[in-house]
């Protein structure tokens, strides 16, 4: 069950050095207001888990540009040259993970699983250091769950209890991340009364959500 708070109150929960997962895919469905506030507050040394690092002046790109990230865990950084530059200069540690594996690791953390077996990455550098398990004659990698202290999630609508609805392809990593962090902070475009969202159309149940900041500026 969620609480509606100011953006300042929400940001107070994020400290220098926090491990934060951030929803969105190439800056679509990314909580931009929360990111802007993080930039303003200069929260540093973050470990960020996200699909990508956006583009230079959008989404997670803003945190990259402002050098607030110490370690980035992502699937793709190719569309933000600044990420590559910082990585090559040794300013930023980057861990690259196949997209299907990353999202499943996040889901596993939220779902109380100790890991899962995936065929993805077998025979590639992704398998380095990982346990291989054979099932029915097929080889799989054992991948472990990945949670975070904080998840920053972008929703289209949130009701006052914390039930969330996403819109179009802005859904992406947001629902699994909303399951997988100790503290789930949601930026909602619109906050509606309890009962206004049809229970059949809730995409993230309120049980997962802690704090909501609302309304586009």
């Amino acid at each position: 069950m969620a609480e509606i708070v100011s953006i300042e109150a929400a940001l107070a929960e994020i400290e220098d050095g926090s491990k934060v997962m951030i929803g969105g895919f190439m800056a679509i469905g990314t909580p931009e207001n929360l990111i802007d506030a993080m930039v303003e507050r200069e929260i540093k040394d973050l470990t960020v888990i996200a699909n990508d690092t956006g583009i230079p002046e959008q989404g997670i790109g803003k945190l990259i540009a402002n050098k607030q990230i110490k370690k980035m865990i992502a699937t793709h950084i190719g569309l933000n040259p600044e990420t590559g530059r910082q990585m090559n200069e040794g300013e930023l540690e980057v861990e690259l993970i196949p997209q299907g594996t990353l999202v499943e690791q996040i889901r596993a953390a939220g779902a109380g699983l100790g890991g899962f077996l995936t065929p993805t990455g077998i025979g590639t550098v992704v398998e380095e250091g990982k346990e291989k398990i054979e099932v029915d004659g097929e080889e799989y990698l054992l991948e472990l769950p990945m949670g975070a202290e904080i998840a920053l999630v972008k929703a289209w609508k949130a009701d006052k209890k914390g039930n969330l609805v996403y819109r179009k392809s802005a859904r992406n990593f947001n629902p699994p991340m909303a399951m997988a962090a100790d503290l789930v902070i949601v930026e909602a475009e619109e906050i509606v009364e309890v009962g206004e969202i049809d229970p059949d159309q809730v995409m993230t149940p309120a049980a997962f959500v802690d704090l909501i900041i609302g309304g586009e500026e």
Partner: protein
Amino acid sequence: MDKQQKREIITKRIAQELADGDIVNLGIGMPTMVGDYVPEEIDITLQSENGFLGLGPAPEEGKEDKDLGNAGGQPVTIKPGGSFFDSATSFAIIRGGHVDVTVLGALQVDEKGNLANWMIPGKLVPGMGGAMDLVVGAQQVIVASEHTIKGNPKILKECDLPLTAKEEVNLIVTEMGVIEVTDKGLVLKEINPEFTVAEVQEATEAELTISDQLKEMKVE
């Protein structure tokens, strides 16, 4: 043949591989063009790994929707009968074998069907995105690639760049021909009549078996 002509031949030929009802994922770049050449009577559904089925063309200018983009973040549309889902479901679809065909580019591909297309150590490290899952999960993996790069073969005996996936490629389509990956190595099935078999073999590091039924590669 200039780059544009090569890409047109490659993507037009790949479009012929698609069957009515197929779920298809097209990689960023050249593979995207495949969608433009699918015959009207063939109804395929494009999957976009960021979370939907029914990927449609770019919207008219001014009609972009901030919440609707492809895996490259570019504005797109969704076709009637499409559906949105989260990334976990998207990769359940992909890894679970529910995508019939994926078309991807290659830096290198080899005679075992190994594919390298996600990094050049020390040079280019964009990340694998969804490619590793797509190549492992899709029923049919088609590589869309120019036959050579700066005159050097891209179809090798053995990839030396970091792999995207091991032994998963089924078909390689270049401007020179159509090559099937089989247990016994690479089989040239179709050849662009602008080239001779000898020329194709010369541009290929791996040894090609020439199909008994070698056909002319036809586009349009």
